[in-house]
């Protein structure tokens, strides 16, 4: 009897093995980027942007740039992605499939610090270059990973520019309120902001956090109101940023400046809040309107690569088939593609070790801005910009070299905004 069973089992195993029969491996003569993308699940929003950004830049490299030069030959780029559902179980298995079955030459990390960390050991074990475009936690780079390279800037620096700017335009504004989401990422932003604020001589009058998925911030904001801050900085993700601004309006809490990470720079933010978002600011890795261009690069002595900003936006729209403006998730993913191209060309090879070494020495500029990593792979060459909503438009107000308009300060009160006042400087 057990014979029959084992025959069955052998059959079962055979069917099993057939199911997994490997697909044709990637032919030589092209360079393949593999990406366990977050197309669904909790990071679907950022994931879609990242895919659009990568597709746009791959397109540009193939059609405009003419391919990646390796050993005298121009090789086209190819982009291969699967959906990891924003879940860690899928990340590892998909990365391993991309490396071993699809034979990709480089892995792009999924969105978020957690998922980036999940994939890192697998990429490391295959000695495969691992491009981090959506994991901002500084701690990733203190773990001793050797193949990880960051394009997004580290979390600790998100609010530094905002504070510098206010310090400059209004030296009398001293009272700062910090209210961030209680997550590994936002807490790191908060720690960086607190340190920087103290250095500049600001007084922290309020410092609290709220958990992920919060639905009502009223109690926190009532306490914030009582602290009478001049400047309010905080935030965490998308939904809490909208809630933050909206409930500040509902409770009539006015401050000279309000800056929120992640949410405030997105078009959906203004669409949801309309006039209430006037004058609200947010730091961003990249924003449509930044002035990075080949001339700029020449001025600071950096090589330039990649599409111009408008080209990028057009390619992005084409890649997604939707008429939306890319946000910084798209730009940083796209910039990672350009970094990869530069790295491969510099190394003269697609070998991950060599490309990683070349990326360590690389410094360049693209539509995304400066790009430079330190020994651990941490991004140090990219500075963030500060964006303010002025008359329904996003205006880059800081730093001076990237600026598209002047800062409107102080922010109009919510009562003024309700009457239709816009934060447009005269």
């Amino acid at each position: 009897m057990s014979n029959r069973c084992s025959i069955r089992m052998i059959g079962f195993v055979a069917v099993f093995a057939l199911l997994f029969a490997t697909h044709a491996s990637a032919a030589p003569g092209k360079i393949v980027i593999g990406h366990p993308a977050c197309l669904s699940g909790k990071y679907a929003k950022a994931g879609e942007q990242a895919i659009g950004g990568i597709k746009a830049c791959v397109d540009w490299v193939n059609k405009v740039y003419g391919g990646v030069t390796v050993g005298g030959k121009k090789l086209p780029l190819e982009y291969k992605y699967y959906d990891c559902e924003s879940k860690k179980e899928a990340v590892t298995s998909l990365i391993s499939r991309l490396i071993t079955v699809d034979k990709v030459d480089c892995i792009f990390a999924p969105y978020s610090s957690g998922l980036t960390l999940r994939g890192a050991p697998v990429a490391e074990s295959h000695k495969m270059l691992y491009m981090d475009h959506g994991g901002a936690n500084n701690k990733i780079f203190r773990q001793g990973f050797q193949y990880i390279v960051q394009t997004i800037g580290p979390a600790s620096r998100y609010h530094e520019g905002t504070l510098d700017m206010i310090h400059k335009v209004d030296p009398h504004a001293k009272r700062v309120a910090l209210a961030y989401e209680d997550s590994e990422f936002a807490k790191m932003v908060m720690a960086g902001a607190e340190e920087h604020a103290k250095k500049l001589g600001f007084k922290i009058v309020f410092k609290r956090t709220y958990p992920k998925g919060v639905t009502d911030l009223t109690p926190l904001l009532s306490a914030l109101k009582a602290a009478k801050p001049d400047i309010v900085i905080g935030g965490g993700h998308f939904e809490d940023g909208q809630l933050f601004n909206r409930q500040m309006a509902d409770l009539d809490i006015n401050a000279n400046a309000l800056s929120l990470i992640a949410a405030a720079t997105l078009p959906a933010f203004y669409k949801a809040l309309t006039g209430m978002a006037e004058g609200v600011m947010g730091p961003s890795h990249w924003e449509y309107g930044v002035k990075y261009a080949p001339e700029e690069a020449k001025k600071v002595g950096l090589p330039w690569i990649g599409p111009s900003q408008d080209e990028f936006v057009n390619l992005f729209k084409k890649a997604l088939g939707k008429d939306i403006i890319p946000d910084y998730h798209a730009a940083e993913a796209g910039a990672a593609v350009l970094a990869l191209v530069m790295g491969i060309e510099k190394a003269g090879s697609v070998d991950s070790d060599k490309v990683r070494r070349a990326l360590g020495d690389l410094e360049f500029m693209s539509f995304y801005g400066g790009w430079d990593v330190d020994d651990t792979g941490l991004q140090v060459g990219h500075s963030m910009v500060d964006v303010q909503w002025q008359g329904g438009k996003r205006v880059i107000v800081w730093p001076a070299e990237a600026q598209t308009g002047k800062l409107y300060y102080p922010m109009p009160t919510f009562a003024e905004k309700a009457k239709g006042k816009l934060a447009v400087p005269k």
Partner: protein
Amino acid sequence: MRADPTKYYPLIPVYVAYLAMFLIGSNMTGMWQLMAMLAFYCALGQAFNIFLGMTGYVDFGYVAFLGVGTYGMALGITKLAHVEELGIGIIIIGLALAVVMATLLSLAVGAVALRLRGAYFAIATIGVNEGFRYFIEGAKIWNGSEGMIFTAELNQIFGRETASALSTFWADVLVLIIAAAAAFVTLYYMKSKIGYALTALREDEDAAKVMGIHVTKYKIIAFITSAVFAGLLGASAWALKTPYVFPPEVFEIHYTVEAIIIVLLGGAGTLLGPLVGGLIYGLSKYYLSIVLPGFQLLIFAPIIILIIVFFPEGIVGMLKNRVKGTALEQYVL
């Protein structure tokens, strides 16, 4: 009773499948991580099934045990990383901590929630899971919401090569072992007094009580066993494989739902069910994400509804009825 070897025949197909997974994974390129994912789902199902399958109680907060297991391993590694003599012993300490913490939590939950039945039990366990997570975040214990990242510690203890092999190979082997052990315990319970008592309980708890069966004792035994396996699974599939722990990720209720889906798909209360459920669930997820990225959940949800409505017994449940009376009967349980 123990002398009868046929009692353990149903384990043969289970172990053959796990062995096959190991062999496919280690011999075919690119298959290991997929097998690791399947092993995780199978192990999750096997462990969950010990309690749910035998008692019919739905523990919606089950993921909390995986969570504390993850914390157990994380705490062991981060707190003891400076003790150099430990070597591989640190993993054993971590696993032991995971077991202890899962046991303690299950005792606490058991004392409270197991007095409740049906939907009340399910809601209470959700409360425990969420409450525990918010306690960690709110009281800022174990680094609060910032969690812990400890690849650096693993590298420091084992060196880069070994640490990498630990995350990408040995953690998965451990998961397979846990799955196999859970299967063994499931069968052992089924064939012993506990199993009969719990079957009586599942059919009619009050009647079982009247018949003099010490219902609470057996319920708690099954509950703790199931929790301990979850703790081990968290320690290996999460803490070792992904050397970080963030509270919102390890207490995510979706994992409980996945466990329920797996068990229900395969057949609750069967030995083979979680294995079959885990394989089908994992494989279909994996291939859907490759073929139709972005639409898995949209496709999955109605399929699950259909299965609940039309095949409530699960695949193995149906198979069991099919093979009844044939020679295969003793292998399918």
